[in-house]
């Protein structure tokens, strides 16, 4: 697509067609007026009453012409907007296929490789068990990837049916970390709650877990530090609760702060294959945040300086309680 000629660029076509239509409108009117005056002088010379022949249609004609041209312009504009949207979707989808190809094919390749190995060679029981364990993990990874797409589809089509339960968010995050500690071996993860309060909020357990899993794994996955760190801080701020997920990872440039939440979006270009992952994780996170009436925000001090992802939940839905009060 990038190789298309400059004169085929949609914006250029759009502008030139607008100019053409506007120009033709002025020319229509100009010629109409000219022909009319010419006719008028002919009539005058012929001593006929011009008003009799040429009833005053002038303004009517101009009005009708303008309306028609206006409709044409609007049509062009709408087609242009839709075209841009399609192009953008096409690009995103291309990106998605590239990235998801990798995510889906890798576990399948591994599974196939081991199955063929088993067919070809007689391995010791010990080796067999080891590789079977790999295969189970690969199958899990595949399931995980498939579930992510399905979850997203469900949330997007708003058919997600999950019970909303009032939970203490601090404890929810702690519980999640306890449960999945094995995944984050070798990482420093700390949960801070400086205000000491507990924050009760109505959440969907399964969705909130997906959100946490994505934010946790992102912090570790896009991290080149020796010991990946993740600090989670609960901060009541103004009219909302900010849950900050601060990591020491690769960070991101300011231009990407909003874009990372787009569907299929990946930092890095697909052409040099530096992009990796599905481009769905953060999009899913944002959708879950919205489902909980909250929003997501990304910040970073720049490349290589870590990044902060904040989940902001509105405070009016939030029960603030003293820690002592919620301890029972």
């Amino acid at each position, binding site marked *: 697509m990038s190789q298309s000629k400059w004169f085929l660029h949609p914006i250029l076509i759009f502008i030139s067609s607008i100019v053409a239509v506007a120009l033709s409108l002025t020319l229509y009117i100009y010629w109409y007026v000219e022909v009319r005056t010419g006719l008028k002088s002919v009539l005058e010379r012929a001593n006929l009453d011009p008003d009799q022949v040429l009833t005053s249609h002038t303004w009517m004609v101009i009005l009708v012409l303008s309306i028609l041209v206006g409709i044409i312009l609007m049509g062009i504009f709408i087609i242009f907007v839709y075209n841009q949207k399609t192009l953008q979707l096409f690009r995103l989808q291309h990106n998605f296929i*590239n990235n998801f*190809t*990798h995510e889906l*094919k*890798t576990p*399948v*390749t*591994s599974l*196939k*490789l*081991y199955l*063929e*190995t088993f067919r*070809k*060679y007689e391995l010791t029981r010990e080796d067999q068990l080891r*590789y079977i364990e*790999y295969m189970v*993990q*690969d199958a899990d990874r595949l399931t995980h990837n498939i579930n992510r797409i399905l979850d997203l589809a469900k949330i997007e089509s708003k058919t997600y049916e999950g019970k909303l339960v009032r939970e203490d968010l601090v404890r929810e995050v702690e519980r999640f970390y306890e449960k999945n500690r094995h995944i984050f071996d070798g990482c420093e993860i700390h949960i801070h709650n400086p205000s000491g309060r507990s924050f009760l909020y109505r959440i969907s357990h399964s969705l909130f877990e997906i959100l946490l899993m994505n934010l946790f794994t992102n912090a570790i996955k896009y991290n*080149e530090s020796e010991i990946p760190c993740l600090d989670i801080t609960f901060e009541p701020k103004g009219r909302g609760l900010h849950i900050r997920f601060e990591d020491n990872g690769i960070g991101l440039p300011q231009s990407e702060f909003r874009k990372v939440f787009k569907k299929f979006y990946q930092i890095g270009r697909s052409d*040099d*294959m*530096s992009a*990796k992952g599905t481009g769905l994780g953060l999009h899913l996170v944002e959708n879950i945040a919205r489902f909980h009436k909250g929003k997501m925000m990304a910040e970073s001090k720049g*490349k*290589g300086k870590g990044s902060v992802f904040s989940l902001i939940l509105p405070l009016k839905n939030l029960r603030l309680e003293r820690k002592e009060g919620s301890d029972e």
Partner: protein
Amino acid sequence: MSNPTKSQILVVEDETHLAEGLKLNLELNGYDVMIAADGNSALENWKEWQPDLIVLDIMLPGIDGLSVLRNIRLEDERIPILILSARGDPNDRVKGFSYGVDDYLAKPFNLDEFLLRVERLLTRGAWSQKGSDSKGNSISSLPRFYKFGGNSIDFQTLKAHGPSGEIRLTEQEARLLRLFIANRGKPLSRRKLLEIGWGYARGTTTRTVDNFIVRLRKYFERNPKKPVYFKSLRSVGYVFGHDPDQDG
């Protein structure tokens, strides 16, 4: 370090399961296998271990597979390289082959096919190896001498002639020159120059490149302030160019 009769294969793959599965199979077939999990260690292992064949994944953390390939091909045209990638459409294959890969296999692949291709590549590699004196003496596709304008470079003795007289090139300068010559007329970004020319991953300062360009200009440009051969492209990088017919 290893049995000399065994062929050595370097497997560059960041997915541990796949890397181990490949290693297992290749070892069962009597090869000596080493695994590199990213582009940097791939380049290191290639230099130190001098494998007979490289199995290369494209999507790698750090330096990607294609840059690894180009980096190696700057110095060694002979070593057989097999790309094993999840991306198998014709465009990707063509890209791989244009950078000098010997074989391309898309994932998921057939194990027997993979093993047979490896065997074949090694056999052919052994033939061409016989022709050269020793294994370490690898050969680049570029001729030993290169001339442009009034300049001449001898890549074997690392001596060059420029407007300022005779110059002794460092290994790194020669490398960068080869990279520029191999990509004559094509713009190279600072990042690609770092990745291919130095084998650095992202995050290293690109000032290094600029400093080297300043030096190359001092060597070969009549007026380093107004470069004719090593031109900068704004917000892209550098391009090396000259008309071969005119300059001979």
